[in-house]
């Protein structure tokens, strides 16, 4: 049943022009699942994540968030959301963390974090500030609350971006290669925050190249190849002896 899932995606297809990037992807995430999505660049994993919160509109397929289906309609042969209102509301329930952080550069870190709760969820500002301070504490950048994003390191910016998403109290967090733009020495601080989130029971979908995160933190690993799910399973199976040949070759390239 759909309502048992935090997220249910059925048979998503997406083409850019004549190039089919996603050839029918399905996935369900139960409460507390931490799913790592691995794959070579061009395998469609980022596009898949962006289809879930409709930053890209899939040509076909169904998306259910917490038991609610996103209503789609056909328009000139193109799939299109029926109600922008519903899309905006669903998006506010899905946290998204980008590879390039994408903090709003004209706002301080604190302003970035309270922006969504105050203006999208229309909650009292004082409450939002108190919660934002707690989140900043949690991701370890409380001293940066009045700094602007440009004055922070990449790792600090990404932790602020995670806090910004968490401030919306999302039902699912989507991470799109959250550590790929970081200098190697800054990767650890972001992964630590993500690991803590996973341990608190947050439902997470993580597109990543961090094999250690996939193996040690997530409870499920999905390997995508050429627009389809090549293999899917618990990390101990995926990284164990019965891994698919393609996946084995993929992780071989990482020296994992």
């Amino acid at each position, binding site marked *: 049943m759909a309502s048992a899932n935090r997220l249910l995606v059925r048979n998503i297809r997406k083409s850019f022009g004549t190039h089919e990037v996603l050839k029918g992807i399905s996935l369900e995430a139960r409460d507390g699942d931490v799913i790592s999505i691995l794959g070579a660049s061009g395998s469609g994993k980022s596009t898949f994540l962006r289809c879930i919160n409709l*930053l890209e509109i899939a040509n076909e397929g169904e998306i259910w968030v917490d038991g609610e289906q996103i209503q789609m309609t056909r328009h000139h042969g193109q799939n299109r959301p029926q109600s922008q209102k519903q899309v*905006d509301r669903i998006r506010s329930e899905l946290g998204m963390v*980008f590879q390039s*952080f994408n903090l*709003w550069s004209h706002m301080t870190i604190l302003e970035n974090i309270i*922006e969504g709760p105050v203006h999208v969820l229309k909650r009292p500002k004082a409450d939002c500030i108190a919660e934002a301070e707690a989140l900043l504490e949690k991701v370890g950048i409380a001293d940066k609350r009045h700094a*602007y994003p440009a004055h922070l390191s990449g790792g600090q910016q990404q932790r602020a971006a995670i806090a910004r998403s968490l401030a919306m109290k999302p039902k699912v967090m989507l991470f799109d290669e959250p550590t790929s733009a970081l200098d190697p020495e800054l990767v650890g601080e972001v992964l630590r925050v993500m690991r803590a989130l996973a341990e608190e029971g947050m439902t997470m979908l993580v597109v990543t190249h961090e094999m250690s995160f996939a193996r040690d933190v997530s409870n499920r690993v999905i390997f995508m190849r050429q627009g389809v799910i090549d293999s899917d399973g618990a990390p101990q199976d995926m990284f164990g002896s019965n891994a698919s040949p393609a996946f084995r070759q993929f992780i071989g390239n990482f020296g994992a």
Partner: protein
Amino acid sequence: MTFIEMLGFGQKGWAGLLLGAALLTICVTATALVIGACLGAVVASAKLSGSRSLRLIGHVYTTVFRGVPELLIIYVIYFGGSAAVTAVGSFLGYTGFLGLPSFVAGALAVGMISGAYQAEVYRGAFLAISRGELEAAQAIGMAKGLRFRRIIMPQVVRLAIPGIGNVWQLSLKDSALVSVTGLAELMRTTQIAAGSTRQYFLFFIIGGCLYLVLTSLSDRVFQRAERRANRSMPASMGQA
């Protein structure tokens, strides 16, 4: 009469008139800037819109008003506008010639030109906003209007300030052309002073100096605004 008398505030002095004229020049330019900001914002959004016909209209506007001499546009607005007002007047029973007030005509003409340049400034500023920041706004569930108000507008304003400073300077000089309509702004008053005292060299130099004072003062204002708006940017990003 000595130079000092001619340039003083006394009965025969021109200082008061020249300063008043400089003030009028600022008023014409400021009015034009506001008119241009409204037109510029509309034209910029037309040029950025998804509709092909709106884009074409915006393109025609900026091409015409940047490509035709300012003086010609001032003539068209002043005489064309006056003809229109006269026509409306005769329809209502007035028979004589009715002029469009030269201040209104001048500010409108300079404003329309300024609007074409401002449109390009706003368009460039919008395109300079990071696409990722706009996506982050979408992803957090901001509706279109909210995104525009909270994410796009503040950044367009910040990114547009240097360009708007430039347009202001252009408009300040364009406003001298409004003198052809008889408006006693700085250029016209300088001409009158020069003609009636026959001290051409002296008064044109003084007029030129007054323009320089206006432009360098406004330069400072814009520089300060730019510094203020760029507080959120890294110090290395070109703040002299």
